[in-house]
């Protein structure tokens, strides 16, 4: 069952092409890690799949009637957010907004959903705290909870462990892994942490220098690009 399939897409920003002729697909239940050097177009690829940017060429097909309100997204933090006075509860609840339809206010089931997700992610005790006072790990958890509030099937994570200390990072990866394995949520994650990518994911997409690689984790470990990238890291 293909949730997303990208056929021969080319991407770029500021008039520069960064990804050429890329094809891959994501199936229901997959845990896809997108790896590659800085500036290789990982975030742009994710934004394009989310339809925040247009591809230069090629097409992206959302399968199985996947709708906007089944997608969750954890973007990289923006400057605005770092000094934004908002409570954790307000942020997580805002994830359920795509279930409102035309109703201007949150209904009871949306609040229950947000509460349940905060329990699951382990931030129920900081619900009334202000987002800008939290530690980096807590902030990422809040954004993950918001993504989950929005998503029932598929979450996109753009460097969810960026700026976290090793312990918080490990916790974050474990949490995402549980969501994928236990709740069956499809995960598409950008990471520059190749070891974590190889440890948890089912599929790897490597972009940057051509040829790109797309396949299962096992295939990646056997491939030339995979060996080079992994051993390059270890040296």
């Amino acid at each position, binding site marked *: 069952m293909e949730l997303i399939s990208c056929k021969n897409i080319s991407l770029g920003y500021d008039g520069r092409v960064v990804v050429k002729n890329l094809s891959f697909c994501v199936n229901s239940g997959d845990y896809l890690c997108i790896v590659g050097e800085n500036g290789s177009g990982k975030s742009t690829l994710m934004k394009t799949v989310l339809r925040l940017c247009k591809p230069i060429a090629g097409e992206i097909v959302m399968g199985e009637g996947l709708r906007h*309100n089944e997608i969750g997204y954890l973007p990289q933090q923006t400057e605005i957010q770092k000094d934004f006075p908002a409570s954790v509860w307000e942020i997580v609840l805002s*994830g359920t907004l795509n279930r409102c339809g035309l109703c201007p206010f*949150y209904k009871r089931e949306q609040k229950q959903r947000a509460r349940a997700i905060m329990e699951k992610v382990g931030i129920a005790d900081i619900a009334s705290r*202000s987002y800008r*006072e939290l530690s980096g790990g807590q902030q990422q958890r809040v954004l993950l909870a918001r993504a989950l509030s929005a998503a029932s099937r598929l979450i996109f994570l753009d460097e969810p462990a960026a700026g976290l200390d090793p312990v918080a990072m490990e916790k974050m990866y474990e949490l995402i892994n549980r969501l994928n394995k236990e709740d069956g949520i499809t995960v598409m994650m950008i990471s520059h942490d190749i070891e974590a990518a190889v440890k948890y994911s089912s599929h790897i997409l490597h972009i940057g220098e051509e040829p790109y690689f797309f396949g299962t984790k096992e295939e990646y470990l056997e491939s030339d690009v995979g060996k080079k990238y992994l051993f390059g890291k270890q040296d």
Partner: protein
Amino acid sequence: MNVFETLLYYLSFSYVRYALIVGVLIALCSSLLGVTLVMKRLSFIGDGLSHIAFGAMAVSSALNISLQMATGGGMAQSMIIVLPVTLISAVLLLRLGENSKIKGDALIAMISVSALAVGYLVMNVFSVSSNISGDVCGTLFGSTSIITLTFSDLCFSLIFSAVVVVIFLLLYNRLFSATFDEAFARATGLRVGAYNLLIALVIAALIVWAMNLIGSLLISALVVFPALSAMRVAKSFKSVIILSLVISVCCAFFGIICSILLSTPVGSTVVIFDLAAFGLFSALGAFIRRAA
């Protein structure tokens, strides 16, 4: 007469009461919109628009359409040119701000100053009034029309504020999401562009409306100050909104009272109150953070 009696004496005039009510309404609306603008880093739109509104006002007064306005007439006459020009500029400024390739801030600074220059030039060259500097001063800092507010101006202000408040309440949750994280809001299906446009249009209408009382230069202070003050201490979005509303309304109310008693210009007195409130809340915020 003591202070209280003086105040009662002034308040016995209907136009003073009208000015007080309209001033508080302006403060209320601008604080609601201000939180969104400040947090989206769009305060420059409010500032740019106010300069453009001044330029448009000057041109329209030269064209005699709002002659009555510039010399202290009702609100309605100014709308014919100033409102459409400001609304269109709001859309354009928003587009410029979103386009990261162009240096948005520099361009807006350029447009603002040009509008001011053109406005002043037009007012001078094509002046129909004997008191040019009075007209310019009135349009920039708001003074003349405060004593000429009519009952219909009051009604218009009440309706306009009610519309702003209703729009804000209905869109509150969506505005929060779009303000906190535009990328997320877009990705999950929110029509962020439409909301941004709506906010820009409402702020344009607000500026044109408030120009009469507060003046075009000072209105952006009413938009940004209460939000900034509230952000120093508030912990949630809702509390920022409520606090900035309270700060703004109080500053406007006491500012206008003060300006009546001391015979100071209304707009600048209110802005001084807002500035003082900002200083107070900044100190309070710093104190809270140190205590925590």
